[in-house]
């Protein structure tokens, strides 16, 4: 079963960082990558992230499924951009160097360069998100959300949701089979409308039986003192060490570089055409 939050336990320095550090770094990194179209920085970021993957000991095959999925999506996305706005690059960079063809869909150097930057932006963010997901224990993640100021009741519900994902998956499967036995067709034989109707016959029982569980679990939590104090501690919580601060500062620098580049370039784009 493919799990949404696929934490992979491995001994590595990245695993040993506190979840809060990784979360903050993820945010800083993403802001840095999102705010700029500077090609130099966008090339540097994926290279650093490949290096980070090496350190984390996460193998390519561990993330290959989701990676392929995203890459296909990315490909579709760039094609769409070209179809709807084939001269976006010209607008951005102010020059027009045609390489191929003419008319509306003529291919320009500017457009190609724009697509390159656009793709690089994805490639600079995706690996780091995957790295975060695969190296952060969900409970520790909840602990770190709490540490950076999110209310612990909200942070804990994140952890709890993760705890129930396998249960809900299993139950969905069972209910779906029993309902199929009653004639609800969920295979490709049925039309989309019928399948949607069929899905409701599975979801309603699933929701009802989940409601029962919610009452039980909330009682169980209160009986063990959940909500008593303004704060709580976390079994999986990690203390901040100097390496955590170093990582945060480094990522902060990335963001600074990205902002400075925007200032220097005069816009979010690095323009080699003028």
């Amino acid at each position: 079963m493919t799990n949404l939050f696929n934490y992979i336990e491995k001994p590595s320095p990245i695993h040993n960082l506190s979840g809060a550090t990784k979360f903050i770094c993820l945010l800083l990194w993403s802001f840095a990558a999102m705010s700029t179209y500077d090609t130099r920085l966008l090339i540097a970021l994926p290279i650093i992230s490949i290096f980070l993957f090496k350190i984390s000991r996460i193998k390519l095959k561990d993330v290959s499924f989701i990676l392929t999925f995203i890459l296909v999506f990315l490909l579709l996305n760039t094609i769409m951009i070209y179809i709807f706005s084939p001269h976006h690059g010209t607008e951005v960079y102010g020059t027009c160097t045609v390489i191929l063809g003419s008319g509306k869909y003529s291919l320009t150097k500017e457009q190609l360069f724009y697509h390159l930057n656009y793709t690089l932006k994805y490639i600079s963010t995706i690996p780091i998100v995957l790295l975060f997901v695969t190296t952060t224990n969900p409970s520790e993640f909840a602990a770190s959300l709490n540490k950076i100021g999110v209310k612990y009741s909200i942070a804990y519900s994140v952890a709890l949701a993760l705890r129930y994902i396998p249960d809900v998956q299993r139950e969905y499967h069972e209910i779906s089979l029993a309902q199929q036995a009653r004639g609800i067709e969920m295979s490709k034989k049925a039309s989309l409308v019928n399948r949607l109707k069929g899905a409701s016959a599975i979801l309603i029982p699933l929701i009802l039986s989940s409601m029962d569980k919610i009452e039980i679990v909330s009682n169980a939590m209160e009986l063990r003192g959940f909500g008593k104090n303004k704060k709580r501690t976390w079994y999986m919580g990690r203390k901040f060490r100097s390496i955590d601060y170093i990582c945060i500062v480094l990522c902060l620098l990335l963001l600074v570089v990205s902002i400075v580049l925007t200032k220097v370039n005069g816009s979010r784009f690095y323009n080699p055409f003028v």
Partner: protein
Amino acid sequence: MEEPILKFENFTFQYNAQKKPTLYDISFSIRKGEKIIICGPSGCGKSTLMHCINGLVPHSYKGEKTGSITISGKNTQNMSIFDISKSVGTVLQDCDGQFVGLTVAEDIAFALENDCVEVDQLHERVKSVAKLVNIDDYLTHAPNELSGGQKQRVSLAGILVDDVDILLFDEPLANLDPATGKYAIELIDEIQKTTGAAVIIVEHRLEDALHRNVDRIIIMNEGRIAVDAKPDELLCQDILKETGIREPLYITALKYAGVDITPQMKPSSIRSIVLSDEDKRKVVSWYENSTKEDIEDKRPYLLEVKDLEFSYDKKAKVLQGVNANVKEGEMMAIVGTNGAGKSTFSKVICGFEKETEGTIIFNGENLSDYSIKERADKIGYVMQNPNQMISKVMIFDEVALGLVTRGVPEDEIKTRVEETLKVCGLWQFRNWPISALSYGQKKRVTIASILVLEPKMIILDEPTAGQDYRHYTEIMEFLLKLNKKGITVAMITHDMHLMLEYAKRSIVFSKGKVICDDTSANILTNPEVIKAANLKETSLYDLALMCNIENPGDYAQRFIDYEREVER
């Protein structure tokens, strides 16, 4: 006398949504280190009583109360649910549901985390408590990797991290197989001895709960305490039958034999009971004078399973070389531990999973190429929890669903649904919303929604799980009635009473194989099979041995047959 640790004084409670009080004038007290069982039929108020002790009433469930409850001399009126949780630890019925951590260690640590205990100390305390209940090798495991017994140990550890004075167990046996249940009672006993806490067990399976000594039994009925007595005294009275609680089988058997039960005989357990030679003679003569129904069954096979194999991935076989059969018109049980293959077996039969090898023949037809839907016309499958099947608001629509999806004409749907509702005793409710029904009635709706497809056979997963004796009897008598109408019934179960009383024959699964196919009376008196399948000997077996009856299986069978006749 020592100050009681828990004391109820003239306590009455009424939920805000209810017209009448659920608890009337409750007075009792428990001393430190005492162990009691609170017993009673569903709706007697025992769950409410428990919620009053642990503070969920009035914290989560609001209502009006009079009288008082004191814990260690303090009136609970002035305590929050959190204050109470420092003195009262509750293990809820559903071990899965109350597991709040992603791993064993986190679950045990939960109460401490909420108390803001520092991380280093957390790890230390968790380790020592885990050791106490012997789960310390599993600290990093996720809840779904554990067995039922292990989950129970984790739940217990989760409340033992606080030094509680009272341990409260809500139906600890409900979801466990018989052997694990027996072990759970032993574990509770051990923990009580090491911690010295008072223990309250709320349970309607009295015989199983009495596997270890208890000091007192409180019987509740209709919101009041009916009896508060020592087990040896209680078992001499007729109160159990009157309140609809199942009497231990050996007690019933002795009564049938005309033995007079007195507290001096120590009747609270089959191991402590002392029978005089005169008593034993009575049992033997009852046995010799009773008759046994002829159980030779010449009916043809309805379902034949040959050399069935199944595995999820190519590696581990979940089922191997299974040969089994069900006769036409039979009512039988499929038993075994969790993971022994009994559920998988039923799923393969219904087509939910595809067998890797072997053949399934139903009524002379090979089912191999039949889809789930096609098989469902022949063999119906009823899930354990009715809420897992119900998807419509109205009873009529729910029962009609299977016919609607099969494109049956509307007027035929109407007649068939109405016919089925009559058979299932739901006719008068036909225009009701399902939410207004009781659990047992909902169960009937789900059975009706399967029966409407006119299958020759139905398979039920744990038909009576979590039900008290009265509801159990109601559901089982209903199934028996269906069976008498010619529907073949197979039941997946842990419940030994169900096997004994309603399944002439049982198939026992262990580690993916059928290890035994025999009468239920023989199985439950066969120590080897019992051990392999995590069952428990019926106390009738011990009684038979005690009285030197050579064939305990035969004795058990005669007892069941006799009981059926008396009850009628």
